[in-house]
């Protein structure tokens, strides 16, 4: 880290410690404010989290998700008007089983994260990826369509919430005061009496509520600031350790994600507006349009990811071209594996529909990728291409196949898969 001999561009007083964007120098505290502001602005702008909703925070132990977690904590510690209005919970998914980590390593990181999560006081879940195989049904639900930031229901919900918080009765105040004195670490009966006297001297409910909030925040701040500031450093160190033990620092080309990450980061250094341009471009786009008219059938959803299927496209399309290529490269191979009467393989599955009895999907054939593929979107098809065998597919898929398909031959296929499943 080289020395920056500049003043912070915001407060003009502190010494700058870093440069963001092209040339903006920030001191430590102004940067922290800026960072917190960006986080809050993102939540406020998008208006998807309604007051009192439960929000699950996905924490991987990496720098980004740990920052998010500490931002949520910071946001919940603020004064009432500026406090976050949702109820957080944490989930950590231990994918060590898929990454080849040993049981001891996994136990170690799980324990570290458990201690971090416990301190937050939020409900937390530490689950292992393997548990997906024993889920009875798919727990995914399709998301709602694009949330509209100008939706009046959000504003109404917020206003309603604020009004409710301010509705006080004398009983509420009394119990709140009682709770406050318990929270006060220097609790004594004298103290409790003093508090009651303080509140009874106030005439209006509004004044009592104000006082209550002030006292609450003072107490919680005292308790909290200490924890927050001392432990945030500790948390960061722990998080970094978790990252280093968990991640295999590998080559750029180890995966598409890693390649793309290094591509964008490198391009950004030569062209500083790259990241924001990509982000803003993506905001103007969406993928497959759901059908607009009322009379059209609701678009089918992918079995795996529940996004709208994008495989029912025109003949003149990239998807169609891939099907053609596959057929052309192994026509004879397809024919020779059939027991069924000769049927042109080209016509059979290119249309994207299941074929009737005697076709290549007939029940005397083991269930294959081809059967499952028809129910998946383009990218999920690519994902399962790498699957060696479908016998270990999650139980929820078998269930969904059963429900979704109506042709007889398909039920046979599904029953085959189901019986194999339970023989494992």
């Amino acid at each position, binding site marked *: 880290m080289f020395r920056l001999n500049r003043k912070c561009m915001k407060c003009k007083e502190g010494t700058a410690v870093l440069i963001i964007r092209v040339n903006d120098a920030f001191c430590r505290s102004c940067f922290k404010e800026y960072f917190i502001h960006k986080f809050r602005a993102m939540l406020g702008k998008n208006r998807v989290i309604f007051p009192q909703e439960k929000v699950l925070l996905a924490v991987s132990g990496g720098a980004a998700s740990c920052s998010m977690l500490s931002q949520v904590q910071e946001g919940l510690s603020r004064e009432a008007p500026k406090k976050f209005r949702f109820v957080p919970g944490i989930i950590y998914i231990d994918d060590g089983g898929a990454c080849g980590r040993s049981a001891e390593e996994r136990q170690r990181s799980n324990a570290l994260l458990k201690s971090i999560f416990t301190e937050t006081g939020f409900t937390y879940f530490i689950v292992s990826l393997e548990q997906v195989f024993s889920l009875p049904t798919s727990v995914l639900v399709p998301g709602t369509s*694009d949330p509209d930031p100008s939706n009046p229901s959000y504003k109404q919900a917020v206003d309603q919430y604020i009004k409710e918080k301010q509705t006080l009765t004398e009983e509420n105040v009394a119990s709140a005061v009682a709770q406050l004195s318990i929270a006060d670490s220097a609790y004594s009966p004298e103290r409790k009496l003093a508090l009651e006297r303080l509140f009874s001297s106030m005439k209006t409910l509004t004044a009592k509520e104000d006082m209550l909030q002030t006292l609450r925040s003072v107490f919680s701040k005292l308790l909290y600031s200490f924890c927050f500031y001392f432990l945030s450093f500790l948390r960061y160190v722990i998080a970094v350790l978790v990252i280093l033990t968990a991640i295999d620092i590998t080559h*750029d*080309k180890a*995966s*598409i994600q890693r*390649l*793309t990450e290094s*591509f964008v980061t490198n*391009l950004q250094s030569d062209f500083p507006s*790259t990241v924001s*341009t*990509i982000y*803003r*471009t*993506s*905001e*103007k*786009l*969406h*993928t*497959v*349009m759901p059908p607009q008219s009322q009379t059209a059938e609701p678009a089918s959803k992918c079995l795996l990811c529940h996004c709208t299927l*994008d495989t029912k*496209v*025109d*003949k*003149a*399309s*990239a*998807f*169609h*071209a*891939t099907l*053609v*290529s*596959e057929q*052309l*490269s*192994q*026509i*004879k*191979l397809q024919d020779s594996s059939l027991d069924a009467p000769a049927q042109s393989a080209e016509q059979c599955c290119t249309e994207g529909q299941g074929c009737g009895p005697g076709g290549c999907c007939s029940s005397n054939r083991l269930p294959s990728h081809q059967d499952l593929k028809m129910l998946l979107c*383009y*990218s999920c098809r*690519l994902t399962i291409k790498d699957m060696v065998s479908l016998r270990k597919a999650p139980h929820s898929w078998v269930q969904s196949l059963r429900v979704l398909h109506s042709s007889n031959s398909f039920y046979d296929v599904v029953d085959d898969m189901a019986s194999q499943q339970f023989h494992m």
Partner: protein
Amino acid sequence: MPVQCSNCVQRRAVLKRPKTGHSLCKDCFFWAFEEEIHQTIVSAGLFNRGETVAIGASGGKDSTVLAHVMKVLNERYGYGLDLLLLSVDEGITGYRDDSLETVKRNQQQYELPLKIVSYEELYGWTMDAIVKQVGLKNNCTFCGVFRRQALDRGAMMLKVDRICTGHNADDVAETVLMNVLRGDIARLRRCTSISTASDGEGAIPRCKPLKYAYEKEIVLYAYFKKLDYFSTECIYSPNAYRGHARTFLKDLESIRPSSIIDVIHSGETLSIKEGVKMPVQGTCSRCGYISSQALCKSCVLLEGLNRGLPKLGIGKHHRLHGKILAQESLTEQEEKKLKAVDF
């Protein structure tokens, strides 16, 4: 251990298809490659019977393969098309003059008529002269814009019904990536179309029959068929922005070969959210070519060159278009900004 061709099973496989990973013998590969292009042409309805089609020919592998395959398919399936070669001479010494020799040989080999149009005769500027004024950073912008119009002008002179170019899957995928990186929503929407709309005057429709053909396969096809083509990179291209997208795409392909078609699929299924501002298509007030601004890009660039202001047209100076149209001179400050060039 020799592998058998996965299609005919009889002959030994000589290559592994980059697109699908299947091992094929030479003949089955030729057949699959040609058949895929035929399917593309038929399913997209690219041509109509009896049309005259100009094949944009640069002497490079894409256009050579395109010319060859178009000729083969035209005869094999009876498309009933009149084919000819149309070539553009940008005036790049040591590069274009060599590739034009290749095109002239193609003319003999495929027995197709040939027409050459040059930047010199159309605009009064060769690329060599342009690079001297503009430098090496933005020169590709000039070349691309000028070439597009040159092809159209040449096609109009020949009175053809349609133009086809050798853009391959890699090109289209790179363009999709580039448009995302540059935030060019309007182009993003258009760039995956296999053919341009045939509305409006002076706009001869053009199409890309090789849109789903991988560059690697085009090279393999040309190699095994022993086609005559010119294989050197343009000497001015190393600094082009497209190079970044290309490197990324090549790396993606090495991880997962279907990435190229996957990117095209993404580009095809993208749509624009409602309420996003889009440019409106009109015509250039000076030359009548299609344009979303008062002056088309070609006219703006040319004006910049002729006035010694190379940066006019690079970056956004729409406010100055009015001044240029009225033939007014620009203020000293405006001129200074437009002169600065980084080499």
